């Protein structure tokens, strides 16, 4: 069969990180090719390069055997490559055909457009009414409108970025039906995902990306989900085995029976009866595929969401009724999931960011007054101790690379010496050397008695750091594991639900 898309030795560097470091991809025409990998493995960078929105530093791209150099997405579209983003870009108050026509540089002839949309919809079995208003369509149908948009622009290769993330199971089946229809008509699909069972169900070929490299191309017939998980995370186990034995049984932080109601009426509970305890000098890890309630758990712990029932307490004191500020003052440190959105004030200097979250702490304020000098001094400490690469403490936060911003946030929270540190993805996006530094800092803090709740997508990190390991699946804690004996592959099976809680006991 002919090769529709080929990437050879793609390298893409960003300040401080190499996002792609030797990516090879060969997609056969009229097939569904899955690209899988952990968060941060470099999948989306590959796709941005293929879609022309970023240019590779090294390597070649071939479309139907001809080398291409995309300067922008427009070039990619001209070569017949289209992309359906995870977040739809549709105007709700327009009809399907209007959305399809939107932004097209051609003469406005509604009749012709409607006719063509109808024809495409029928040809590829997408089953979309061109006259329907997008606002009235369900999520699955909207996604098909996005696919129609791409087809209308002449795409023969369609990239779908995590298309199932927004869909419920029935819609996933419908999408797969549509995708099979598309390939039957000669279209090529590149399917990005980290949901292994779905990938096995739909793909003709699977390419695995790990740490910026493509590590394997396999056929779904020859592998199991467990094999794929192993390929995704790599087989080598993390180095740390300096587990301290001086854990106490004094509970610093506990959650009991925490249930968080559904987002929309009639939906399922976002969190269901979660109970956990973190002792003084203990790191409890929470594993789970993204989107299984971790975000909601974090937001409930910090006090941004209000649970239906259950309680949260710090050092035996119930903080359920307390505001976020009260919880912070009680000694709750917080490394947020999304550093720029939740943890930084980008347009202002680092020394102002040092105060963020600790406006009322005695370290930086006396009565109503903010102590700028203390903040400045602390900022220098953070920069020194956590190796933040910055021209100085007064540098504006956005000037730092993502990894350095992350190190700064970790340093800010750790140096406040909280009783309980809630750490979400503490090493996401930072390079390997810095990662080891952060891990060391967390271990040292643990040994000094800090309690840490670690939520991460990095299985090495979870297994290497945690004293106990919980697994979340669909808003439930489904397993309580001993990281000393678990392997990454096994953990992966708990995370995807292949293993059940009964097996764990």
């Amino acid at each position: 069969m002919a090769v529709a898309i080929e990437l050879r030795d793609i390298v893409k560097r960003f300040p401080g990180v190499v996002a792609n470091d030797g990516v090879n991809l060969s997609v056969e025409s009229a097939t569904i090719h899955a690209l899988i990998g952990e968060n941060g493995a470099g999948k989306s960078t590959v796709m941005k390069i293929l879609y022309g929105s970023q240019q590779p530093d090294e390597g070649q791209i071939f479309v139907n055997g001809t080398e291409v150099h995309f300067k922008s997405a427009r070039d990619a579209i001209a070569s017949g490559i289209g992309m359906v983003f995870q977040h739809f870009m549709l105007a709700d108050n327009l009809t399907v055909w209007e959305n399809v026509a939107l932004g097209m540089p051609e003469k406005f002839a509604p009749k012709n457009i409607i006719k063509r949309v109808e024809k495409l919809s029928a040809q590829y079995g997408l089953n979309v009414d061109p006259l329907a208003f997008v606002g009235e369509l369900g999520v699955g149908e909207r996604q098909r409108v996005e696919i129609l948009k791409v087809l209308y622009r002449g795409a023969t290769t369609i990239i779908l970025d995590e298309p199932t993330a927004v869909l419920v199971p029935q819609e996933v089946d419908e999408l797969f039906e549509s995708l099979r229809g598309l390939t039957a008509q000669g279209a090529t699909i590149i399917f990005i995902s980290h949901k292994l069972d779905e990938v096995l169900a739909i793909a003709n070929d699977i390419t695995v990306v790990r740490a910026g490299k493509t590590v394997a191309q396999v056929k779904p017939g020859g592998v199991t989900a467990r094999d794929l998980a192993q390929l995704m995370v790599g087989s080598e186990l993390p180095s740390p085995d300096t587990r301290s034995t001086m854990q106490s049984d004094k509970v610093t932080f506990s959650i009991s029976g925490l249930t968080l109601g559904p987002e929309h009426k009639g939906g399922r509970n976002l969190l269901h009866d979660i109970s956990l305890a973190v002792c003084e000098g203990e790191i409890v890890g929470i594993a789970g595929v993204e989107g299984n309630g971790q975000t909601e758990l974090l937001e409930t712990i910090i006090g941004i969401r209000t649970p239906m029932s259950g309680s949260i307490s710090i050092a035996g004191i119930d903080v359920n009724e307390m505001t976020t500020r009260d919880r912070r003052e009680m000694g709750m440190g917080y490394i947020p999931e999304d550093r720029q959105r939740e943890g930084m004030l980008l347009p202002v200097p680092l020394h102002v960011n040092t105060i963020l979250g600790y406006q009322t702490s005695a370290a930086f304020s006396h009565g109503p007054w903010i102590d700028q000098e203390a903040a400045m001094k602390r900022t220098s400490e953070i920069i020194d101790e956590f190796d933040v690469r910055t021209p100085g403490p007064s540098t504006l936060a956005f000037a730092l690379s993502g990894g350095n911003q992350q190190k700064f946030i970790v340093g800010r929270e750790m140096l406040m010496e909280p009783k309980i540190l809630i750490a979400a993805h503490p090493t996401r996006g930072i390079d390997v050397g810095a990662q080891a530094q952060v891990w060391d800092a967390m271990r040292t803090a643990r040994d000094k008695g800090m309690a840490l709740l670690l939520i991460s997508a990095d299985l090495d990190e979870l297994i290497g750091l945690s004293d106990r390991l919980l697994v979340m699946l669909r808003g439930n804690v489904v397993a309580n594991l001993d990281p000393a004996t678990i392997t990454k592959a096994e953990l992966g099976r708990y995370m995807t639900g292949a293993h059940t809680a009964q097996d764990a006991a």
Partner: protein
Amino acid sequence: MKLKSLYRSAQAPIIAIAIALAVSALALLVGGYNPGRAFSAMASKVGSVESAALIVNKAVPIFLSGLAVSIGFRMGIFNIGVEGQYLLGAALGGVVGAAVDLPGPIHVLIIMLTAMFFSMLWALIPAVLNVQKNVHIVISTIMLNAIAVSVIAALSKTHWFITTAFRQTRPLKPSAFFPNLNTPLRWIGIHLPKGTQLFGFVIVAILVGVGYHILMGRTRFGFDIMATGINPTAARFAGVNPKRTILVAMALSGAIGGLIGMAGLLEDQHAYRVGEFPVGFGFAGIAVALLGRGNVSGLALSALLFGLLERASLGLSNAKVPREFSAIMVGLLILTMVIIYELTTRKVQAQAIKEASELLAKTHAEKVLA
């Protein structure tokens, strides 16, 4: 270093003023007027001690209005309602001031507090609507401006108001007059011509300005407002209660807004006259806040610039140029300033990113060499 940064920060407004003047000259030419004559006629109006005092007098309420608007800006709220807030505050301040009879300073203070109180109440309406029902503050404040004017009109039909040439509140007694600064000026050898005064309220404006500067730059509350304005999500994670912050900030904005009309009421007109009391300061404050960028000295300079242009525009009639041209100039000035500021900000940001990434590249190289 200090001089250089001073030069840098002065650069942008000077360029903006130059461009605005150039385009204004073009507009004058197109209109068939002689720009040279128009500008010199304007300049002739601003040379004297008298005009300096009048410019400052004009700048005082605009500056206070700029402060009131800036509090909202700092936290990402566009409070259009300062206009209605200050007018309502001034009208009710006038009513209460005429109804009571108290010794000097207390009488003045009561009127000021009354105006601040009602202006604050008026500002709290959109704040509560926003916090409780998520009503957009721009929309509600615009509507409340219109309602405030109607409320004053309705009020003017009550027995609290009398009819002279205008419907007006009963005149204030001299105990409610705010002292002007002519006497202290005379001590230092500056003599204002008869009939001209320098508002004593300029002292109040300076005090409020200093207070604003300290509150925003040095306190926890100012930090919360700044954090909310920059990144509301991060502010929430950092323990800022967004609803409470909106309420307090709007209340504060309204209270400062109440002072806007006080110079006019206590030093100039000594009564609230419907149709005669100076309007438009609330909107001028929005422009000044845009130009001043939440920075007190920037606000003060912008307010003075507004006062200057207002004063200079009186000269236009001598050059047989319609006064509306001054409005064109003010508009052009705001536009060029905003654009130039935006460009400078981008330049500064790009420079910061460049410095940080150069450092990163350097340390990387050192690592490799080592």
